[in-house]
C-alpha cells in the first residue's frame, strides 16, 4: 500500500529554528514544574469567575478544530469517494494527530486533579450521560488513538524498510492486518469528530445566561461542527501549499478547487443557520443593541462571508492564491468564533475579568512549540508529505 509520491523530506533535524523550539520547550518544562507544584492560580490569570481560559478556549477548543484537517479530508476522500484527494490525506492526518494529542496535553495541564483522569473512561457505571463534556472527553480520548492508528502505516512502512530487525518484522507482520481493518478505523475517524466537535458547542449551552444569547443557541452544536470542517479545510490547503513548496512540485489545484466548492456550501449553511436562528428566536434586536457583542457578532459573520464571496465563482477556485487566502481567513474566523463562544461572549457578571498571565501564555506557546517540533521530526523522517496526484495539473 505504498503512497505514491509520498516520502520523507529528509535533511538534518537540529537546524537553527529547531534549536529555538527546544529552547522554548526548556522554558515550558520549568513552567510546568511550577504549575504542578504551586497550583493553577500561581501560573495563570484564571479565577472562579473565568475558570476556563486560553488553555481550554485556544489549546483544546481551537486546537482540535485546527486538527480537523484529517476529518475534513477523510469525509471527502473515503466517505464521498473522491479518491483524488488522497495525496493530502497523510499530512492532514499528521496535523490532526498532533493537534489532538496537544489538546490532550493541554487538558492534563488545565485540570486540577489530572491523576483521576483515567477514571473518566474507566468508571462506566458513573458516567453522567447528561454531560456534553463527558462525551467530548471520551470521544477525544478515543479519537487520539484512532488518528495515530490511521497514521501508523506511515511509520510502519518506514520501519519495514529501514528499521532494526525486530521492528522490521513487526511492521511487516502488522501491516496487512491493519490494512484489512482500516476502513472500520477510518469510519470511526469520521464518526468521532462529528460527535465531539458538535458536543464542544453543546458544552457551552450549559452556561445559560452567562453566555450571550447571540452565541447561546440550540444550533451551536451544528455551528461548531460546520466551522470545524471549514477550519480543517483551511489547514489542508495550507499543508498543500507547504508540501508543494518543500517538494517543488505541482500544487493540487484541481483537488483544492472542488474542495473549495464544498467549503462554499458549508459557509452558506453556517451563515444561514446563524442568522435565521437569531431571527426566529427573536434575537434580531440583540444583533444591534448589545454594544461590543453586536459588533463582534457582525465581525464574525462578515469574516465568514468574505471567504464565501472569494470562492463563490468557480473560476476563482482555480487560483491557488485565492484559495490560500480564503483558507487562512477561514481558519482565523473559525478560531475567533470558538474563542468568542468560550471566552469573549461568556460573562460571569460584575467583578470578574480575565486576561491570560505571561506564564499561562508561555505554557500555550510551549504546547504549540512541541507540536511544531514533532511535526518537523516526523515529516523529515517518515513518508508523510507528497507532491501532486497524477490527475492534478500545473497551477500556473
Amino acid at each position, binding site marked *: *500500500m*505504498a503512497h505514491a509520491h509520498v516520502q520523507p523530506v529528509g535533511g538534518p533535524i537540529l537546524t537553527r529554528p529547531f534549536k529555538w523550539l527546544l529552547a522554548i520547550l526548556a522554558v515550558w518544562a520549568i513552567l510546568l514544574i511550577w504549575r*504542578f507544584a*504551586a*497550583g*493553577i492560580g*500561581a501560573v495563570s490569570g484564571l*479565577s*472562579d469567575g473565568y*475558570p476556563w481560559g486560553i488553555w481550554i478556549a485556544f489549546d483544546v477548543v481551537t486546537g482540535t478544530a485546527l486538527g480537523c484537517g484529517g476529518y475534513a479530508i477523510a*469525509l471527502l*476522500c*473515503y*466517505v*464521498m*469517494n473522491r*479518491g483524488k484527494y488522497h495525496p493530502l490525506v497523510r499530512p492532514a492526518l499528521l496535523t490532526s494527530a498532533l493537534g489532538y494529542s496537544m489538546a490532550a496535553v493541554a487538558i492534563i495541564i*488545565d*485540570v*486540577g*486533579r*489530572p491523576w*483521576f483522569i483515567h*477514571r473518566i473512561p474507566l*468508571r462506566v457505571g*458513573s*458516567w*453522567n*450521560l*447528561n*454531560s456534553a*463534556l*463527558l*462525551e467530548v*472527553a471520551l470521544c477525544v480520548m478515543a479519537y487520539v488513538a484512532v488518528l495515530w492508528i490511521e497514521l501508523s502505516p506511515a511509520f510502519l512502512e518506514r520501519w519495514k524498510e529501514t528499521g532494526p530487525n525486530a521492528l522490521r518484522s513487526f511492521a511487516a507482520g502488522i501491516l496487512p492486518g491493519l*490494512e484489512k481493518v*482500516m*476502513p472500520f478505523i*477510518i*469510519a*470511526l475517524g*469520521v*464518526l468521532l469528530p*462529528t460527535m465531539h466537535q*458538535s458536543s464542544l458547542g453543546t458544552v457551552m*449551552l*450549559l452556561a*445559560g*445566561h*452567562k453566555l450571550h444569547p447571540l452565541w447561546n443557541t*440550540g*444550533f451551536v*452544536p*451544528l455551528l461548531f461542527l*460546520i466551522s470545524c470542517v471549514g477550519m480543517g479545510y483551511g489547514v489542508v490547503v495550507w499543508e498543500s501549499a507547504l508540501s508543494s513548496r518543500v517538494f517543488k512540485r505541482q500544487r493540487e489545484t484541481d483537488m483544492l478547487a472542488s474542495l473549495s466548492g*464544498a467549503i462554499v456550501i*458549508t459557509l452558506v*449553511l453556517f451563515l444561514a*443557520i446563524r442568522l435565521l436562528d437569531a431571527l426566529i428566536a427573536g434575537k434580531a434586536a440583540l444583533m444591534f443593541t448589545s454594544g461590543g457583542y453586536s459588533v463582534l457578532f457582525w465581525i464574525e459573520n462578515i469574516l465568514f462571508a468574505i471567504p464565501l464571496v472569494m470562492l463563490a465563482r468557480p473560476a476563482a477556485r482555480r487560483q491557488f492564491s485565492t484559495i490560500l487566502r480564503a483558507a487562512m481567513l477561514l481558519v482565523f474566523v473559525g478560531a475567533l468564533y470558538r474563542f468568542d463562544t468560550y471566552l469573549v461572549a461568556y460573562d460571569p*457578571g460584575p467583578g470578574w475579568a480575565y486576561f491570560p498571565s505571561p506564564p499561562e501564555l508561555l505554557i500555550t506557546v510551549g504546547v504549540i512549540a512541541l507540536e511544531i517540533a514533532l511535526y518537523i521530526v516526523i515529516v523529515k523522517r517518515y513518508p508523510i508529505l507528497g507532491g501532486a496526484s497524477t490527475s492534478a495539473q500545473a497551477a500556473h
Partner: protein
Amino acid sequence: MSTTRRDLIRGLAAGGAVAAVGADAVASERPQPPADAVGMLYDATRCIGCRACVTACKKANNLPLELYDPPEDLSGETKNIIKVYEDENTRSYVKAQCMHCLDPACTRACMIGSLQKREHGIVTWDPSKCIGCRYCQVACPFQIPKFQWETNNPKIVKCEMCLHLIKGGGQPGCCEACPVGAVIYGPYQELLADARGRVERHPDRYWPQGSPKIYGESDGGGTQVLYLSAVPFSDLGLPDLGEEPAGHLAAAVQHGAYKWGIAPVALYGVLAAAVWRSHRSSGTGRD
C-alpha cells in the same frame, strides 16, 4: 457512491431540527423536590449582618478562619458569606451560598458525577470522582462552586448544607448560629409554606411590594434554598433566570442527538459502509 455531499448536509440539518424539537419536549417537565427534601429560608429583612453564620460555617466545615481579615466573597476557603447592598434609599444584607437547585446545572455538567444531588436533595461533592475540570463553575448560574487555585491538590468547595451535621440529627452551622432567625433550616415544604405565610402577612415588607416573590420557588427550575427580600433580587446578585433550568436546553440537544445511542451507531454503520465501498472501488487499498 451511496452518500452524496448534499445528503450528508441534509442529514446534519435534520439533526439540528430534531434537537430543536426535542428542546420543547423536555422544557415542559418541571423539576420536583425529593420527598425528603430539606432546605433553608433566608429572609434578608431579618438579617442584621453580624456574620455569625460565616464563622459558624467555617467551624462546622473545618475551614480556615481569619478573625481579623474576614473573607469578602465565596472562595476555596469560604462556603457561606454575608454581603451588603446599598443605594441612596435602601440597604440590605444578602447571604451567598449554594442554592441546592432542584435541577442543578452543576450536576448536569459533572462528567462522572462528583457533584450530585444526594440525601435530602443536597448537592454534595465527591473527591474521588472529580478531575478538577471546573465545568461546574462554568455551568452554575449562581457562581457558587469555588476552586482552590493556590494548591497542587485542589478541591471544589461549595455549601453542602452541613450534610454531616444533618445526618447526626443536627442542622447546618449557619442556621444554628443565626441569632435573629434570618436563616432557618427545615423540611423544604414547611419552609415554602413559612415563606408564603410571611409574604401573605406582610405584602409590603417584601419585594416586589404588593405581591412579593419568593426567590427560588420557581427560579431556574426551583431551588431548595429560598430567599425573601425588601429590595429587588437582582440587586442582591440573584440572577433573573426564568423558570426553566439552565440545563434543559443542553440536555434536549444532547439527548436529541444521542437518544439510546441510535444516531451514532447508525451513522457509524453508514460511514463504515461508505468507506468500505470507497476502499474496494479504489482497488489499490487505502491509496
